[in-house]
């Protein structure tokens, strides 16, 4: 099997990937190592491995998504699984069917892994308690987006060798960002110092109790950070207006060419996408030499292959034990 030579003496036992908060440092490293092995598959002439042949995977997406869904689909097909797509617009959810009934119907079709994206925090946890299939969280409300957190950690590790001691700024709409939360859990467990940067109106409740430092000034941080992850403003999740205008937001929190001049020369510029060019980041920066944004997209496939592979393996292990 395509597992990295670096694989640790470690037994992966989770048949669901719900979030990174519950993962230990060893588990995080194990997924990243497994992903490293799968990255090689994408470089082959025949970009496939038979690891999940005959398995049925469903993309159960209740929110619009193109890149994450495509990335999961590609990951699944590289593992030779069959994939069906189920989005709320095409499904009976609009006719009033509950998530639970939808899931039970999918289970009746013999699905092995459910990849779920949902606007409600905790929907994957709820689902995992009620069905036998494996559940992989592809983003739930503003709770977690574990595969994004993993691919961000993976990308940083690839460039910097590891995360220990790095100063990583996550900038923008922290309150409504599942990426910020998953990044925080992964990066802090792997030894990085995480700084949440944004206006107080975009910070979550009791942010001071999280394992991060908080800054309201990007200018104060820009010189000392090794990695900067710029979040998209989640206009669709906000109520009221947490900042007066896009112009004012960009002035204080946008990653501009000017600000980049004050940053470390090897600063890594990240973004989970899709980018609002000119709002959180100027085009020259998004496309500049420090940007790893497209590489994040490529790495996402390897990380998602690892996630699907591992949950399936744990499920098979559990079935054997029974």
């Amino acid at each position, binding site marked *: 099997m395509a597992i990295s030579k670096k694989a640790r003496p470690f037994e992966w036992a989770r048949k669901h990937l719900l979030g990174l908060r519950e993962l230990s440092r060893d588990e995080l490293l194990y997924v990243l190592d497994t992903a490293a092995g799968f990255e090689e598959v994408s470089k082959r002439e025949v970009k496939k491995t038979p690891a999940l042949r005959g398995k049925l995977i469903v993309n159960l997406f209740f929110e619009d998504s193109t890149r994450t869904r495509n990335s999961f689909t590609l990951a699944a097909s590289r593992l030779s699984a069959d994939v069906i797509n189920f989005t709320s617009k095409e499904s009976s959810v609009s006719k009033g069917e509950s998530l639970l009934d939808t899931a039970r119907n999918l289970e009746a079709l013999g699905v092995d892994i459910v990849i779920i994206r949902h606007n409600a925090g*905790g929907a994957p*946890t709820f689902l995992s308690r*009620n069905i036998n299939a494996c559940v992989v969280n592809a983003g739930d409300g503003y709770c977690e987006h574990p595969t994004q957190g993993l691919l961000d950690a993976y990308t940083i590790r690839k460039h910097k060798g590891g995360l220990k001691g790095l100063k990583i700024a996550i900038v923008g709409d922290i309150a409504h960002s599942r990426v910020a939360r998953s990044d925080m859990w992964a990066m802090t467990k792997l030894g990085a110092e995480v700084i949440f940067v944004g206006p107080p109106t975009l910070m979550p409740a009791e942010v001071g109790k999280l394992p991060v430092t908080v800054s309201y000034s990007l200018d104060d941080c820009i010189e000392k950070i090794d990695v900067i992850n710029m979040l998209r403003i989640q206009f669709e999740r906000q109520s009221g207006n947490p900042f007066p205008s896009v112009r004012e937001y960009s002035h204080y929190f946008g990653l501009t060419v000017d600000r980049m001049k004050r940053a470390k020369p090897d600063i890594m510029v990240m973004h989970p996408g899709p980018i609002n060019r000119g709002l959180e980041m100027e085009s020259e920066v998004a496309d500049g030499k420090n940007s790893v944004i497209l590489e994040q997209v490529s790495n996402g496939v390897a990380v998602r292959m690892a996630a699907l592979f591992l949950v399936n393996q744990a499920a098979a292990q559990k079935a054997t034990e029974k």
Partner: protein
Amino acid sequence: MNAEILIKNGHVIDPANGVNKKADVLIKGERIAEIAGKIAVPKDKCTVIDAAGKLVTPGLIDIHVHFREPGDEEEETIASGSAAAVAAGFTSVVCMPNTKPPIENETDVEFIHRKGRRARKSYVYAMGSITKGREGVELAEMGFMADAGAVGFTDDGNGVQDAAVMLRALKYASMFNVVVAQHCQDDRIAGNGVMNAGYHSTILGLPGLDALAEEAMLWRDIQLVKKIKHGVRYHVQHISTAGSVELVKAAKKESLPVTCEVTPHHLLLTEEMCGQYDTNYKVNPPLRTKKDIDSLKAAIADGLVDALVTDHAPHLQSEKELEFLTAPFGIASLDCVLGLYVKALIEPKILDWPGLIRLMTEKPAKVIGVDKGTLGIGKAADVTIIDPKAEYVIDTGKFKSKSKNCPYDGWRVSGRAVTTIVGGEIRFQI
């Protein structure tokens, strides 16, 4: 109906009359006839109940229940709810008006009363809505509802957002001497919150409902009450935060006509319990913190709380089997509430039995202004006999309530009603 009931050998607790001793209680017809050390068994046809080792108390009163009728009879009806009530020791309950349609005129109030009489379980009182359609804009017909027997007004489920409307409601209701009760929640602050705002809502990725939403409206309402002064009676429902306790304390210190109530879940459960996204813990006001619980318990010990209630809010399992974000708010606890209050207040010695009974009888009766909650001679024969030592495991499968949305399933508690007498009639007996 039994002509006479003699309850022998029990320990009588009647806080309104300062009674806390072993005594016999004789009921004639619908009234309490005699309480004395030893009452001989009358020669006429008489039912004798041996209450040795039991507590004999005024019938319990819960001034905050949702029986869902009319509109959501699949969740609860006045018949099923009042059956649960008497089985739990309650002889009187007050239904909230957030039904479909809401209770907003005299016909609606009479409907509740009629259904209650037909069920022949507990007395069923009604609060009417403060505003038409519970929309917070125009006053509902409070006068007609009061004349029909409504014991209070509330838009429960919603707070009255507009300060001018609330001021008008308090002023208008003052001429009928009926209490105006408020579900304190500033909707703009509350937003779409589904659990207490704080560290736990942050890591669970759920919208938070800030304590400030409750406190801001309570503070505002107290200013309105101060402004009116005469005749007004204001009751704040289900207080849940340390800040609300401070506001009530200050209002009472000024002798303002402000009363308040507490639920069992705000004394026993904390926000952490939402951690598995179990929607049986989704309730409004939301479960708060240990600090809030300590503050509420201290308020009860200090005599600042006027009523212990359930806020019994039944929902179907299918409604609760949803994402935490979308499931409805509410906990059904009427069937097991006495055991819960014993656990929350008697076991940690915050109250003794007379103290607990007072907050479930005499004091809530005063909040709604009914002549109940005592065992005074000549008063209505609403009596509850409690076995304070009976231990049992809460089993929602045995609930008389139609709904099982109860996070206490499987809890071991002690203290339960064994006999409930309503208007001189034994309506429940184990």
